[in-house]
């Protein structure tokens, strides 16, 4: 019997992340608009709200002392942001219309050349760029730097940003979201209060906007609680990337397909790599693989290491030095996996958290920004005299459905699923879908949960290259290069079944790019004990896709990305 990760669900329920307010009213922190997550979506929402406060002083009069607050679990805005990233500037242009020009935004420059390569172990064949992937008029950026810049812009507009603060529970009272409870700080490994224990706080808000990004902790709970899940389950890919200082400039953005992934259908290995220039002296190189893969020995971290040994890629990095490393999941379900609604009483959902990503175009930042902006406008409408809050929040759904996000996602709705049928068939189907703007083949192709894929084991790991500390790195060195220096003696934040079949333990150990899981001793009944090193965690979210559940550790934990 082959094992499926979903047969070993984590000891966790979405109700763990939902509760009533508990702080006495006079100790509660009151804000008008509370945004969870200082990423492109959350900060776009904050900036738009700040703009509206500025533009409409009469309405703003009625707001409290803290009109807009943003919670960020990372050490600082940008610390947990990681993306390719080639950014379609459309969302930012709309957000900063009449206020900022593109050349004032933190971009590394416009894309002037691009190649799509099909790799074999030693060769690279240039293939025509699929129309969805054309990057003309797009800009290379570090989303971490973009996040820091957006945070500064937001603060200038009077937004309060609260870094190192995790949003642990969604506060629901009378069927309505009334705010968020932040996580405790200063607990020991066993959960005991340390000398500097600082309890979390209830933050009450008129409207709560969840912009938590991929695998959002409260977003997942809210989708359950309010019955917002769409017809199809969300699926994810895991992306691992490095930023390198290089000796010579790279003149184009490069995407690759093929090696080191295997094309046969039974492996379900969908993905590819990217190499983007960041100015004249840096490049970023990354590997993305769909988490519907089956091989317990597949490790995206090590596939990226292997990719760098390819002569075509190695040439770019020669004489260079790795400066940063990081990993994150990407929601890949697209249109068919979107929630049925994007709002609930007192609540709006945006960005990657609800899967607003265009997989064939490899883009989501502009959708995040646009959805954040639209959410802000809907939230603001609740302030209009005589407005119905319910209608105002529902208007967010309507505006999303009228936006370019909806149109574009619809066109490419079946493309990702096609690759479940192997690389070649998937590629052919994707071509047909592009040519017909999504009309052929007709209908919606369903997604299948990543955790439902049965596991196989090959000896894939044997061929990963050995670390040399220069081109090829081991996972612990990579964790170090993420800036992660999480306090070790805090409670474990990863929920998994700790006694599972060996295949599943192997899957987690290989999958995790940060060496959080280790296959322990056999228990004598066919299972093994999984050992955890939670402080290595860079909160990529892969475990949630493959049978476990990531919950937020103490605020300020995790990676400290600056250029990813």
């Amino acid at each position, binding site marked *: 019997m082959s094992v499926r990760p979903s047969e070993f669900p984590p000891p966790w329920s979405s109700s763990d992340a939902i509760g009533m307010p508990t702080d006495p009213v006079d100790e509660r922190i009151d804000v008008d608009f509370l945004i969870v997550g200082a990423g492109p979506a959350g900060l776009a929402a904050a900036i738009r709200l700040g703009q509206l406060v500025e533009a409409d002083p009469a309405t703003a009069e009625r707001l409290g002392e*803290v009109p807009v*607050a943003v919670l960020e679990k990372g*050490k600082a805005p940008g610390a947990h942001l990681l993306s390719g990233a080639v950014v379609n500037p459309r969302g930012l242009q709309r957000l900063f219309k009449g206020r900022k020009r593109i050349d004032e935004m933190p971009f590394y420059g416009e894309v002037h050349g691009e190649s799509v390569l099909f790799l074999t172990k030693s060769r690279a064949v240039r293939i025509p760029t699929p129309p969805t992937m054309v990057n003309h008029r797009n800009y290379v950026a570090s989303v971490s730097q973009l996040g820091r810049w957006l945070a500064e812009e937001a603060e200038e507009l009077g937004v*309060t940003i609260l870094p190192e603060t995790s949003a642990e529970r969604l506060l629901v009272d009378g069927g309505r979201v009334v705010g968020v409870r932040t996580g405790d700080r200063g607990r020991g490994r066993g959960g005991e209060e340390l*000398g500097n224990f600082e309890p979390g706080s209830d933050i009450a808000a008129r409207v709560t906007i969840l912009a938590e990004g991929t695998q959002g902790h409260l977003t997942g709970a809210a989708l359950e609680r309010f019955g917002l899940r769409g017809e199809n389950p969300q699926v994810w890919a895991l992306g691992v990337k490095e930023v390198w200082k290089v000796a010579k400039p790279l003149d184009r953005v490069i995407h690759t397909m093929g090696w080191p992934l295997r094309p046969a259908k039974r492996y379900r290995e969908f993905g590819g790599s990217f190499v983007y220039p960041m100015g004249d002296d840096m490049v970023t190189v990354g590997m993305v693989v769909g988490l519907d893969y089956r091989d317990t020995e597949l490790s995206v971290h090590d596939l990226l290491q292997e990719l760098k040994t390819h002569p075509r890629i190695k040439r770019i990095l020669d004489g260079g030095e790795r400066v940063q490393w990081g990993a994150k999941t990407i929601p890949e379900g697209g249109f068919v996996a979107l929630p049925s609604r994007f709002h609930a009483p007192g609540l709006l959902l945006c960005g990657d958290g609800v899967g607003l990503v265009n997989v064939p175009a490899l883009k989501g930042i502009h959708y995040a920004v646009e959805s954040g902006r639209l959410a802000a406008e809907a939230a603001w409408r609740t302030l209009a005299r005589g407005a119905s809050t319910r209608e105002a929040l529902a208007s967010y759904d309507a505006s999303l459905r009228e936006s370019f996000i909806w149109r574009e996602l619809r066109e490419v709705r079946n493309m990702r699923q096609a690759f479940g049928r192997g690389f070649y068939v998937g590629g052919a189907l994707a071509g047909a879908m592009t040519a017909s703007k999504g009309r052929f083949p007709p209908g919606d192709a369903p997604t299948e949960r990543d955790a439902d894929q049965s596991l196989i084991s090959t000896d894939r790991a044997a061929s990963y290259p050995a670390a040399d500390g220069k081109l090829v790195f081991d996972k612990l060195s990579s964790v170090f290069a993420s800036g992660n220096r999480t306090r070790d003696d805090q409670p474990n934040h990863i929920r998994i079944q700790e006694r599972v079949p060996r295949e599943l333990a192997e899957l987690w150990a290989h999958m995790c790019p940060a060496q959080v899981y280790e296959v322990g001793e056999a228990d004598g009944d066919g299972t093994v004990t999984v050992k955890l090193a939670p402080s290595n965690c860079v909160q990529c979210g892969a475990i949630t896709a493959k049978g476990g559940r990531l919950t937020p550790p103490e605020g300020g934990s995790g990676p400290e990305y600056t250029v990813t």
Partner: protein
Amino acid sequence: MKIAVCVKAVPDAAAGRRLDPTTKRLDRSGELAISDFDTYAVEEGLKLKEASGEGEVVVVSMGPEKAMDALRKALAMGADRAVLITDAALENADVLETAVALAGALSNEGADLVLFGQQSADGGGACLWAAVAEKLRYPIVSQVSELTVGDGSLTGKRQTEFGYDTIRAPLPAIVAVSDSINTPRYPSLKGIMGAKKKAQETLSASGATGPGTTVVALNPPPPRGEAQKIEDDGTAADRIVEFLAEKRLV
């Protein structure tokens, strides 16, 4: 009681600290954060103020203008206000110039007690307080792992290479605390939200004289000695003892 806490904004560790090849000084162009060691001094100041039930804790720093953002962490922890000495002339300040600048600001403040952390997180000499004490003509107790203050004097337990000394000094005085003295608190959310509204004063330095030290060159580190690697053939223990004897370690 008025307590001044001297803190330093250092390049955030995560961004990777590096020396600027042009100025040959630490590159401070990136994000700055309050040195972890200084949070122990802030915590001690806050505890003393809370214990006495009155008084003020003011954080004093010298650094670029953006260092004020880093000082806000001390304000979020509970310090009452922040004073930042910032001046282009002090960009490459060494311990001597820094001591003069801090002493100037501190004498304006007239604090009863001046606290420092045990070292900066970015490679300082762990001695700035002594230079400041000299300029202010205050007594100094460093490496203090226990501190009590009352009746116009302080008693500190100092950790040295040889054990623990207990030293008493009258106020005003300077104390550098070690990181075993307390566990710094996390800023509360209300503290973080209130930090921006607290008084934040920027001073320019008067009469900077230039540093007393220079950086001549930066070199790569030498390889570690003549590293030896041996396989144990049953004599490894003897070989190790020989090696230790050679290095005069046994």
